[in-house]
């Protein structure tokens, strides 16, 4: 029993080491773009499918926005979740696996994505359809790996007039 407990302890330590991988969101406010960056001291496997856009015009599958209006109320859809995934509009979201191994001490950088695509469809389903009242947003991501979930949320960003007009 003591040996079993010791083995469980070792496995937990290994998981902890592997979970030192981290994901961050880099924003280029001038270009209104963002990308996802994963760094890891140990090799980690991700499902690249989760970081791909289901179709043009939508955000990657596991990327979401949290939107607040001018009085700091949450702008959300009928499911009352604060998180809005524009990829939820797609019909192609039955899960698939596209494994990508990120080697130890390397960095994965996604392509640059358009911020406006995070908002696609929000106005149609939102509790606040007057997008002129939308004020700020955060970009978030939750990515599954073989050693746990990587999460990140950006700082609050201002919603540009372009996004308000488009969506």
């Amino acid at each position, binding site marked *: 029993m003591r040996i079993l407990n010791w083995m469980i302890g070792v496995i937990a330590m290994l998981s902890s080491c592997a979970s030192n991988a981290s994901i961050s969101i880099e924003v280029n406010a001038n270009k209104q773009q963002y990308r996802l960056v994963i760094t890891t001291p140990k090799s980690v496997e991700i499902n690249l499918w989760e970081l791909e856009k289901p179709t043009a015009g939508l955000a990657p599958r596991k990327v979401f926005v949290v939107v607040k209006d001018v009085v700091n109320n949450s702008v*959300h859809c009928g499911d009352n979740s604060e*998180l809005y995934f524009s990829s939820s509009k797609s*019909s192609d979201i039955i899960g698939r696996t596209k494994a990508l191994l990120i080697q130890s001490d390397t960095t994965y950088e996604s392509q640059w994505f358009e911020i406006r695509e995070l908002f696609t469809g929000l106005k149609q389903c939102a509790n606040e359809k007057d997008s002129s009242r939308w004020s700020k947003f955060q970009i978030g991501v939750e990515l599954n790996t073989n050693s746990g979930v990587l999460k990140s949320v950006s700082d609050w960003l201002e919603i540009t007039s372009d996004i308000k007009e488009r969506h």
Partner: protein
Amino acid sequence: MTDPTGFVAMGDSAAQWNCATRVGCQVGEDGSINRVNLWGEGSNSNEQNQNQSTEKSNTSGVKPNSIANVANTNNAQTASTALENEKIDVLAKGPDGKPVFKGIGGLVSVDPSRAGPADLQPGQLQMIDGSKMMAYKNLSKNMAWDYDCHGYSVGESSYWINNDDLHDWLDHTNSLVKSTSPEIGSLVVYRDSDGKVVHSAILTEPGKVTMAAGTVIYTTPHGPSKTTTVPVADGWPEPGTTIEYWRMK
């Protein structure tokens, strides 16, 4: 019960249920069934079928603006009747009147991070042209997964149908035909710049479609809804999208 026009129905008879789940029909608070034209005025036709012609004189192709212009030349009653009689109906039905769906393999548990957990039964829908189409039946109570856009358009609001599966079926079906003169009830198909199907809806008003979209749940004055009605061009507003209209053959 809420129909795609957002009307909340009272009562529970089969006729009331059928009415409540169809566009252009309302169940009154007293349980009466009223046809509603697509411009929002009750016609109170008391379930009388009116077999008026719904042919339209559109010769200008499939641009949304042209549809609105053409459709506005028709009277409201004609449009309402058109929807009742001509909404595409491509699923084969069993003796019980329900779509024929044959499950295949084990349940699929969807990624719960976006719209919550659900178990879906994969299977095949039998189509009236003898073909089959892959679909998923939601076995959970999570309404986000009850149906997607294609499930609303061709799956009687009962199934999830992936883009690829509708795309492939449209390539081979004998029951629908692409039309340059869209009518109320037409299937509206949106394709990306590569020609792949990305969305579908039903033309339910002149220049407007009623649609679902993936797991999205819409906020309405009557509560959460899987469907919304928007201008045709707003159904899938991504630049480069092409729009097609399909009618029963």
